């Protein structure tokens, strides 16, 4: 994968709003932004109600994903362009799902909603409906998804990348600073994880930094690209952003997103936790 196949610019998107076989999809946790204005023709996916299992802590299974995409009118042959707020966090998460279920052609809109808004590009309120399809998903590709036991086993052996803010990594905050800090689980990070906040990979308008800048950021942080890598954050969406950078933009192989992330790891009984600004010992 590379920037040319995984990313489109706002200019490209605006020229291809009506292109046949191209479907724009806005993904957010709070879809009220979509309702106040969205890219013309874009449908919406709600990270919580559409992409998470309503009962178990897991994301939608193959059958649920097929039913969702069929109902929203996305077909296997469509080029899916994902974008959203929060610097594309949830759009990157959805991108990872589409890859996990084997969608052939999916891309992120560079800069997401923020860049589009700051550029004063048009947003519309039209209700978008697409004809129903018969979407067929592949078996989940677990080569890009890490589970908790793999994370524990990776301590001191694989690259672990903590992409939360420095204060969350050190254990001084339990959640991003736009949210109340009342979560009950332990603070800190997985021992030996390096700290590379997701935001290092993005410019302030939400677009990704250049490949050269990105390579330098991870090399300087000590990421050994000959080893497998697991990225995590708090609930797995910011680490999807970093997974996207490493695997889809920079072409690293064997990068996994740990979607359980700190809300799972920080609540496990008996696992090691490191506090402070240093990675800590295995």
């Amino acid at each position, binding site marked *: 994968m590379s920037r040319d196949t995984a990313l489109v610019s706002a200019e490209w998107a605006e020229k291809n709003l009506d292109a046949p076989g191209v479907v724009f999809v806005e993904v957010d*946790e*709070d879809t009220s932004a979509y309702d106040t204005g969205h890219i013309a023709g874009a449908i919406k996916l709600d990270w*919580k109600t559409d992409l998470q299992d309503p009962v178990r802590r897991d994301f939608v299974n193959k059958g649920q994903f097929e039913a969702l995409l069929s109902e929203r009118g996305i077909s296997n042959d469509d080029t899916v362009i994902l974008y959203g707020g929060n610097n594309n966090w949830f759009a990157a998460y959805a991108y990872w799902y589409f890859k996990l279920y084997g969608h052939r052609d999916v891309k992120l809109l560079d800069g997401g909603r923020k860049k589009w808004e700051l550029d004063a590009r048009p947003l519309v309120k039209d209700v978008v409906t697409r004809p129903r399809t018969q979407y067929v998903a592949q078996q989940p590709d677990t080569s890009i998804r890490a589970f908790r036991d793999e994370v524990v086993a990776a301590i001191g052996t694989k690259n672990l990348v903590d992409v939360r803010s420095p*204060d969350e990594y050190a254990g*001084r905050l339990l959640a991003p600073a736009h949210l109340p800090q009342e979560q009950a689980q332990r603070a800190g990070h997985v021992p030996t994880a390096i700290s590379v906040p997701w935001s290092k990979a993005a410019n302030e308008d939400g677009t990704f930094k250049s490949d050269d800048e990105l390579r330098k950021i991870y090399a300087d942080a000590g990421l050994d690209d000959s080893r497998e890598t697991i990225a995590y954050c708090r609930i797995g969406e910011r680490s999807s952003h970093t997974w996207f950078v490493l695997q889809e933009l920079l072409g690293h192989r064997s990068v996994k997103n740990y979607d359980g992330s700190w809300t799972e790891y920080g609540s496990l009984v008996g696992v090691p936790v490191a506090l402070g600004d240093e990675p800590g010992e295995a």
Partner: protein
Amino acid sequence: MTAPTAAGCAAPDQAAPLPASLDLEKETVITGVVRSGEGEVVPGAYVRLLDATGEFTAEVVTSPAGQFRFFAAPGTWTLRALSRHGNGDTSVTAGRGINEVAVTVALA
């Protein structure tokens, strides 16, 4: 996965009242309004909270009345606002409780 309690990582409504469960003895709330150089409130601005080293910590979008709010920790922070009307920075030394900060944006 389940939604983690009150919210995941999406930007919550910036105009909503503070939750009743919030303990202002413990929380450090940084809140305020973004205005243009002419004094008009700026809705839809992107406000970024940067830590004392300039590292990005969080970002929210202002409410229709230009309001923003962060739950941070005591210390020195920079608020950087981006908007179609230009950008602007303000720094604040915050303590526990509510810290009111004004941010003005202007075209460079």
